[in-house]
């Protein structure tokens, strides 16, 4: 095994090329979330014109993938889209922001898998959707988790030395989340 690729990489055994590719994967997935948080528009998230998040969430009811989830969307999410829209906006903005800089990356990879699952359950059977888009989204987050991608040219990689040296609760937590 070779030494760490760079001072900005906390991964013994990673070559510089591998570390760069892992960082590209992380930043690419971050840009996906950033681009897609753009059409989550408060305050009604598309309810008035049946577009935006309201329309797409409605596809879970029109083209059910998993009946209990469809019932939940129909009975809880759509009537309260103003609340769930904000949840969605904040989760996806957080995914974009934290994956972009590589902070608490493993935590956000798990959040990304959860959000991907919610999206998949909403639109997998919708017309003109390519099902592998959603499978690949999940797999990309799995790769980010498996490679602890924030340790490659991310803030995690820079800060783990500090967190490792500290015995504080927050530092121990950050060691696990990164």
């Amino acid at each position, binding site marked *: 095994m070779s030494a*760490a690729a760079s*001072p*900005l990489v*906390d*991964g*013994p055994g990673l070559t510089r090329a591998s570390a760069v590719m892992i960082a590209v994967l992380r930043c690419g997935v*971050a*840009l996906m*979330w*950033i*681009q897609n*948080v*753009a059409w*989550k*528009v*408060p*305050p009604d998230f598309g309810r008035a014109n049946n577009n935006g998040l309201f329309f797409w969430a409605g596809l879970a009811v029109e083209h059910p993938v998993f009946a209990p989830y469809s019932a939940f969307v129909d009975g809880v999410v759509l009537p309260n889209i103003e609340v769930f829209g904000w949840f969605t*906006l904040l989760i*996806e*903005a*957080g995914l*974009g*922001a*934290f994956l*972009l*800089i590589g*902070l608490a990356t*493993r935590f956000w990879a798990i959040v990304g898998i959860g959000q991907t699952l919610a999206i998949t359950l909403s639109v997998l059977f919708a017309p003109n959707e390519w099902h592998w888009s959603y499978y690949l989204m999940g797999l990309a987050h799995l790769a980010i988790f498996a490679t602890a991608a924030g340790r490659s*040219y991310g*803030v995690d990689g*820079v*800060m*783990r*030395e*500090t*967190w*490792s*040296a*500290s015995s504080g609760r927050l530092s*121990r937590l950050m*060691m*696990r989340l990164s």
Partner: protein
Amino acid sequence: MTGGSGTSTTRDRAAIVIGAAAIVLAGFVFGAALPREFRFVNIGPVGAGLLVAGGVLSIASGIIRQRMLRLIAGALLTGAALVQLVGLAVSIRPLGGDASAMAVIGGLGIGLLVLSLLPSPSTQPHDPTKGNP
């Protein structure tokens, strides 16, 4: 001001990378000319200006090893993202663009704050495997 430890140097380099990223991402202010598929961030002139200002401060902080400058850059960007968040709630876009601008500016700002606020580690050697799940 940061000390002369190796870790401070690493944080300085990270600040330079984040600053450069901020300036590059500010280029999306011209994104309207791009096909929709490549328009990753929607940002207005105010947001782009803040990204450039924060980016320049961050790069300068890395070059001259001034932690306070990095802190100012982080606070500037994080504050701007919070203003955009409040603006979104009342249908105003202070930075132009939309929530994508908030995510980018907020992410870079939080990164700089983390690099600035946490104390430098002690001299004990770092074990990269410590804390691995």
